[in-house]
């Protein structure tokens, strides 16, 4: 592959425009097909039986009565999903999460499943399955789980990353550390030190579409899976491995996706659907209820974080330190580690140290959630940074500008930065009219910064030119945020044709080479790189065909604005050949014209954002209202600015919900109290103002168009920006997320009591 991914400044004609999205009309008219909209002849209804206990040994499961119920075609337990993971610990955890083996580890953990002719029969069958549990003590709180007296969730887990190998098992699966310099020395140089502790509650991605799939296993060992996922190639690998199928014989087709945000990056119920289909000999549709989605799929970590930052009078940070404890659910994770990496990534620091602890709790398996782990770390750090600026007496924006990382700064998590956007976003915020707008009584303004790594990864695309001169683009990254439109713009740009002549689809796993999933904000970044590469390969063939049509050397043919142009004095009299004209003759000049690309998209540029928030607090009830909100973020290059803005707004909206009201509430019995949208309060439309956006474009040197991922960073600053705004509105520092009305009112009452004493 001779593809050069380096950035080359160029003028764009398609990239940067805002055509309507090709999937939009289908989505708003209900015609788009989501996970549950696919049906097969003879399909059965799958349902899962879930543990009502937070922690229990499964002594025995008797399925005989359920099996005898008329209309039941298959009943399965862990015995029907034997362990084929061959020492792959991460896959074993995914398997055990799909179907509990010896212990139920959280309220909602799957223990058995049925396939029946209809939903009613399936529900009845679940009631007939008898599970004999021995209930064990449980622990759901991250700090409680770290205590020596806490119930042990897995006695095979010994804390990794300690200097001495521990002799006793623990709920802490791993300790990690990042940083450089000497923080003790750094704090000794500080004139002012701020030290604070914070907690954040567990939140769910809140995707509107529940997990849904149709599985069909054939007697010959082939199988089909139609599923709502962020990565159908990854789902194929997981399912093939867990079911003992050959990957090439399992064809996975991704449906439209009603939100994933990281929650659809590994399998939850799909292997169960396949196992049911294999046993029943018929296709099985399995759709989670909302209750199941909350109890048994993808929440993010609950956290407990200590932060200490010191600075000199002039506002220079001399040292920064954080200890981060993140809940992982009942399996080992790497969530605190990511928090430890991102916590201080915005700043230029001589002395920095972060320590992360991965903590097992009796809650559902933690999954990625949009810039996973970064929002909580940013909440703690950016709250402390605001306090420190206040104590020193410097404007919080100026304080951050003074300490912002730059090109050449060694990041707190290791690498040295190239050109980055933290400084420019801060300068843009400083000059934004929002910062100067007047505030009314009980209103406060806050701002905060955020960072996310972004990811590239394995990518494969096919670009096929039809004989009518139109182009079909097959990509393998699921479209979660408008990428089909963006990638069509890129193909049109590179080929020099109109956007309306390109149609992009997401191809199934049998039609295209392996693609990593749409996570790490990689969809448009990596697939646009592969699309540019595929288009350039197609152009090479187009030039060859034109040369053949003209009977001249291909070296004398250039590609300009969608046309083959003959070069040199000898061919000066030849007219241009359009892509359409070359395509029309392709049958006679060597057959179909296509460009393919397989690459690893390295060099995803890191991403920074700064947010501004105005909030009004009702001092009598603790109720809050977001009055105004502005997102400033670096996009590298906004391929389709409307979707970039949509990503900025979406991340901010989710962050606002997290900051103010969303939380998993567990009872003393270890059962989730609010597994539904009524009491798990994501914001509704009227809760939010129109979120303003400002796109900055600091080109990523490692992408031909300068593109950076944009999907995740926007959820990182809101928790801190809102906490800072509340602090400025009513003078109390909120250290516990969500800042729900009862928490704010309690903090206000405590403050009033303090003053009245």
């Amino acid at each position, binding site marked *: 592959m001779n593809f050069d991914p380096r950035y080359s400044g160029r003028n764009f004609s398609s990239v940067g425009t805002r055509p309507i999205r090709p999937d939009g009309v289908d989505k708003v008219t209900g015609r788009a097909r989501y996970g549950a909209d696919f049906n097969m002849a003879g399909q059965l209804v799958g349902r899962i039986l879930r543990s009502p206990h937070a922690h229990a040994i499964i002594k025995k499961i008797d399925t005989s009565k359920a099996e005898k119920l008329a209309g039941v075609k298959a009943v399965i337990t862990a015995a029907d999903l034997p362990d084929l993971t061959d020492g792959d610990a991460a896959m074993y955890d995914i398997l055990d999460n799909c179907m509990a083996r010896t212990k139920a580890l959280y309220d909602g953990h799957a223990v058995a499943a049925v396939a029946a002719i209809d939903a009613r029969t399936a*529900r009845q069958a679940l009631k007939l399955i008898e599970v004999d549990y021995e209930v064990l003590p449980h622990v759901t709180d991250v700090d409680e789980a770290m205590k020596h007296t806490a119930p042990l969730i897995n006695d095979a887990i010994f804390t990794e990353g300690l200097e001495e190998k521990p002799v006793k098992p623990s709920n802490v699966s791993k300790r990690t550390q990042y940083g450089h310099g000497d923080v003790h020395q750094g704090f000794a140089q500080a004139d002012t030190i701020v030290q604070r502790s914070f907690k954040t509650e567990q939140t769910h991605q809140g995707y509107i579409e529940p997990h849904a799939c149709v599985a069909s296993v054939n007697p010959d060992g082939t199988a089909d899976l139609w599923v709502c996922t962020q990565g159908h190639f990854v789902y194929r690998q997981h399912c093939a491995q867990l079911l003992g199928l050959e990957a090439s014989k399992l064809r996975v087709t991704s449906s439209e996706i009603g939100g994933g945000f990281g929650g659809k990056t590994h399998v939850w119920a799909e292997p169960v659907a396949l196992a049911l289909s294999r046993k029943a000999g018929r296709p099985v549709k399995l759709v989670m209820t909302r*209750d199941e989605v909350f109890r048994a799929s993808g929440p993010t970590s609950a956290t407990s974080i200590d932060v200490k930052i010191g600075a000199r009078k002039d506002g220079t940070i001399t040292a920064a330190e954080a200890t981060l404890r993140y809940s992982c659910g009942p399996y080992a994770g790497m969530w605190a580690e990511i928090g430890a990496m991102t916590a201080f990534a915005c700043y230029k620091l001589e002395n920095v140290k972060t320590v992360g602890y991965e903590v097992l709790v009796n809650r559902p398996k933690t999954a990625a959630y949009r810039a996973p782990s970064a929002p909580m770390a940013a909440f703690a750090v950016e709250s402390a940074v605001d306090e420190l600026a206040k104590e020193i007496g410097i404007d919080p924006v100026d304080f951050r500008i003074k300490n912002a990382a730059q090109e050449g700064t060694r990041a707190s998590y290791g690498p040295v930065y190239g050109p980055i956007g933290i400084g420019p976003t801060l300068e843009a915020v400083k000059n934004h009219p929002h910062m100067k707008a007047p505030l009314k009584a009980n209103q406060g303004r806050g701002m905060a910064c955020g960072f996310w790594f972004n990811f590239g990864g394995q990518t494969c695309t096919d670009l096929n030119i039809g004989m009518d001169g139109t182009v079909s683009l097959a990509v393998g990254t699921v479209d979660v945020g408008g990428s089909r439109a963006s990638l069509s713009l890129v193909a049109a740009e590179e080929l020099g044709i109109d956007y309306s002549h390109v149609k992009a689809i997401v191809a199934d796993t049998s039609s295209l080479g392996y693609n990593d999933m749409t996570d790490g904000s990689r969809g448009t970044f990596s697939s646009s790189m592969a699309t540019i590469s595929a288009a350039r390969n197609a152009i090479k063939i187009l030039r060859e065909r034109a040369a053949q049509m003209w009977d001249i050397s291909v070296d004398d043919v250039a590609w300009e604005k969608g046309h083959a142009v003959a070069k040199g004095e000898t061919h000066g009299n030849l007219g241009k050949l359009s892509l359409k004209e070359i395509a029309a003759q392709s049958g006679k000049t060597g057959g179909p014209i296509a460009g393919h690309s397989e690459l690893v998209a390295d060099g995803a540029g890191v991403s920074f954002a700064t947010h501004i928030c105005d909030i009004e607090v009702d001092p*009598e*009830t*603790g*109720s809050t209202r977001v009055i105004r909100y502005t997102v400033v973020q670096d996009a590298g290059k906004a391929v389709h600015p409307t979707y970039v803005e949509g990503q900025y707004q979406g991340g901010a909206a989710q962050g606002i919900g997290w900051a*103010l*009201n969303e939380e998993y*509430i567990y009872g003393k019995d270890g059962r989730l*109290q*609010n597994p539904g949208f*009524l*009491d798990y*309060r994501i*914001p*509704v439309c*009227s*809760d939010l103002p129109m979120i303003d956006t400002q796109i900055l474009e600091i080109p990523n040197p490692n992408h031909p168009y300068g593109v950076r991922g944009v999907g995740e960073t926007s959820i990182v600053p809101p928790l801190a920006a809102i906490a800072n705004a509340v602090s400025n509105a009513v003078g109390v520092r909120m250290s516990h997320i969500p800042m*729900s*009305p*009862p928490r704010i*009112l*309690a903090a206000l009452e405590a403050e009033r009591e303090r003053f009245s004493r």
Partner: protein
Amino acid sequence: MRYIRPQSMEDAVGLLAGAAGPAAVLAGGSDLLVRMKGGFIEPELIVDIKAIEGLGEIKETADGFSIGAAVPCAVLGENAALQKAWPGVVEAAKLIGSKQVQGRCTIVGNLCNASPAADSVPALVAAGAKAVVAGPSGKRTIAVESVPTGPGRTSLAKGEIIEAILLDKRAPNAGDAYQRFIPRTEMDIAVVSAGVNLTLDDKGVVKSARVALGAAAPTVLLVEEAAQLLIGSKLDEATLERLAKVCAGACRPIDDKRGSIEFRRKVAGVLAKRVATTAYERAGGK
């Protein structure tokens, strides 16, 4: 499961009275269907009352208003006379669920669902509304507050249906209001709520008052002491503060996922003050 859509109240009552298994009345279905889909109840008989004549109407009589059991809450807001006479009742009914839900749900359903957090009930109780109950042994009219007896339980006997809610003809210088506390702006259930109904004399002094609190006890609370302290006042600051204290004290709330005891008490008092002020203004007080 049987679904029947009778044409008369006699048939509906007869069906319910004769049902062998669990039976349910269907009007808007915004509670019933959700509970059925969630697998919480599996009724053997569903009696849809929407085809019964008169149940879908709001009648203005010499005594006031009669709101049929099948009138959707959204229709209450479209009735100018009702809106003018009982703005508090209408604003409460229009807070239930979403716009879509309001096109289906009814205040009788809200009452019979017997949730302590029902939005329209504190407003109806404050308004002194009555319920017309049809049953196997004829009709009776009872105070709205005597219908719910606890969360999910009512005083209705087997075969009884509430066919209408009655609201008095409005005296001059009277006003009512309702507010609830929710962490969101809509699509939510009251953490705590308050309804106040006041009548003033010509000088703007409160002549009669009713104060009701929702989500503050197993059933809606009618706070007599709060009403008494408002009577004879012009809702000066001191009176409002006492109102807040009395209402906070009258609450018997629980700690749950929607709010703590402490929070509910405080906010009940705050809402009572705010609602009383609005009712006073609507009654023409200054």
